[in-house]
């Protein structure tokens, strides 16, 4: 039984990407917008011109504002950011609410604005709700970089996308198809029903699977609310309601861990395939005991690292967030800014029994 009070609190977990912006300005997500009354997307924040040779000054105040403090995933990502800020000789700080709500994030953005932060790196609990607060921060001179979960492109300077939505969706479908031989019934265990990233991925997964693996059938999508227990129950519900289920895809770390735990303790272990997005630490046991063959994820530390560099480059004026600009992100090398100020980290890493021990997060 999960809590009805907080069941819908979006725990800060992996929610990805990109598409959020796309999703919200077009009506891709089941038509959440009425029409573009004030459509004003486009090259946001690129009014000033970039100076690629500008020096990154020391002592930049770079603040990380994750969806929720003490969330392991964001702790790793912020850790990457801290490393980058150290290299840049900047002033790193991590602030955030203890519950993953947009309204408390707004309060922290306001505080950062008041403190005069140079760069705010954040992952949005709600793509729109924190927009006006970010606008105020930018009006106060701060540069805003989003990572993991984007906001409306208008209210940030750049977005670090851990992987493209296509990449994430296709990787998972490919992994699943590999394990079940490309045919059979597959279900999806998602996060909350209103998680924009997951919804976008699921759409792409469905169309990609229909096109590439016509024998594979995505029969249902259930929501574990990014709560372990709920996800656990939903997994069990899936197997009850679809006895001939061949595989489960869970594009959320909480979901895949819960599903793996359920499978490993049930008669379905090894018979029902499981893949999705998970962290190596949580999944290690299940990969080793054979419940899970392979799953994917990007390295969150790299995500935070890249975000910090992007923020510093923005603040220094090396880049403005316009398409085509380039900058160097320390050890990760050179990156090019894509459409709508989007910077893609790269393809997700696939974890299997033979490489999982190389990662610790």
């Amino acid at each position, binding site marked *: *039984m*999960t*809590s*009805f*009070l*907080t*069941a819908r*609190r979006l*725990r800060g977990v992996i929610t990805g990407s990109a598409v959020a912006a796309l999703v919200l300005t077009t009506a891709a997500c089941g038509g959440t917008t009425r029409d573009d009354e004030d459509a004003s997307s486009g090259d946001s924040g690129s009014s000033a011109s970039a100076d690629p040779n500008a020096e990154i000054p020391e002592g930049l105040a770079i603040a990380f504002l994750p969806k929720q*403090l*003490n*969330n*392991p995933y964001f*702790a790793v990502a912020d850790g990457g950011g801290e490393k980058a800020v150290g290299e840049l000789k900047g002033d790193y700080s991590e602030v955030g609410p*203890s*519950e993953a709500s947009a309204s408390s994030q707004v309060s922290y953005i306001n505080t950062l604005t008041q403190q005069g932060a140079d760069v705010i790196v954040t992952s949005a609990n709600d793509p729109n709700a924190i927009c006006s607060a970010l606008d105020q921060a930018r009006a106060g001179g701060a540069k805003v970089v989003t990572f993991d979960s984007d906001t409306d492109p208008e209210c940030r300077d750049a977005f670090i996308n851990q992987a493209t939505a296509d990449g994430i969706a296709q990787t998972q479908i490919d992994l699943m198809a590999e394990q079940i031989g490309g045919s059979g019934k597959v279900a999806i265990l998602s996060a909350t*029903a209103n998680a924009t990233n997951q919804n976008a991925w699921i759409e792409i997964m469905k169309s990609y699977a229909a096109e590439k693996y016509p024998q594979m059938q995505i029969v249902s999508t*259930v*929501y574990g609310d990014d709560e*372990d*227990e*709920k996800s*656990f*129950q*939903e997994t*069990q*519900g899936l197997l*009850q*309601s679809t*006895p001939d289920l061949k595989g489960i895809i869970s594009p959320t770390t909480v979901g895949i*861990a819960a599903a793996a*735990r*359920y499978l490993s*303790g*049930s*008669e379905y272990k090894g018979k029902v395939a499981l893949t999705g997005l998970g962290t190596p*630490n*949580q999944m*290690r*046991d299940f990969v080793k005991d054979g419940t899970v063959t392979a799953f994917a994820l990007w390295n969150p530390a790299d995500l935070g690292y890249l975000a910090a560099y992007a923020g510093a480059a923005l603040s220094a004026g090396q880049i403005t967030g316009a398409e085509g600009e380039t900058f160097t992100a320390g050890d990760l090398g050179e990156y090019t800014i894509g459409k709508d100020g989007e910077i893609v980290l790269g393809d997700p890493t696939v974890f299997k029994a033979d490489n999982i021990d190389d990662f610790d997060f």
Partner: protein
Amino acid sequence: MSASTAHRPPTGATEADAPEARSRRGAALAQRLVVVRELGILAALVLLIGITLIANPRFLSGQNVRDLMLSAAVLVVLAAGQTMVIITRNVDLSVGSVLGLSAYAVGTLLVDHPGTPVVVAVLAGMVVGAVCGLVNGAIVAVAKVPSLVVTLGTLYAIRGLTSLWASSSDRLQINASDLPSSFKSFGGARVLGIPVLFLIAVAVVLVVGYHLRSYRSGRELYGIGSAPEAARLSGIPVGRRVLTAFVLNGALAGLAGVLYAARFQTLDTTAGTGLELNVVAAAVVGGVAIAGGTGSAWGAALGALLLTTIGTALPQLGINPFWRDAAVGALILAAIALDRTLTLRLAARLRGRNLRGS
């Protein structure tokens, strides 16, 4: 709690003071209604399971029933503890946070000392919970501050403490792989096919329920909740009893934390967030009156079971999971409305008998 007595008229003073009550059958009726109340939840549970079975015949498969039991275990233990507190006309809203602290503490203990026997881990969790309960109980009983306010305060404070501990020790999450296998096998252990965690929960409910029913100190809790002032005048050590109820409830919340850790094996600082209203809801659905004085741990446990089953059954019935919260809310309202109706009918019957009997 003395001030709250002002809101309750003395026994029956607002009821019609009909001529002398001389009824043998009144008592039998009253008892029957109590039984009816618990049977009612049981019937609702059976009905729900029945309907789900029709929709999905595999609902009662061994695996599924085990899962249901595991899911219910934590809430059942919490509901049993909460019953003791609510019966005294208090409430403990901090149980979710206490569970979180206890689970995290036990997780930390096990990670740092993998050789810790399971029994010691369980006891450690209970001690952590009992200490939290002691803080709550001491403020309520000694400073005479309403428990709703105190435990709302500790709800925030204990959660903050857990979170602070986690961030300062740099261990934000404890994963299954960090935990010793003895503890993990405890989480999955079964006796006669029944999960041990559930058996523990059942044992807790039986002990608490039996104690409340058949021991002086248990009956005194009912007395305190039924009429705090009368309890004081009749020599019941009200402060001590209330304190004890809070400590025991805290210990059970701590135990629930251990069960939580054993079952989920993945812990972070958010464990049990928001569980408090669920627990209160389970007790209310199970016939424990929020105003104290009536209800049983058995009823509360059935309420917890019913809420858990709804969570599991809805997706299997193909009902949009969005409806679950609404269903839980409706269930709570139905339960309290039913209680009220039963009480009114009982009062009317007793009054009617009074008149005829004299």
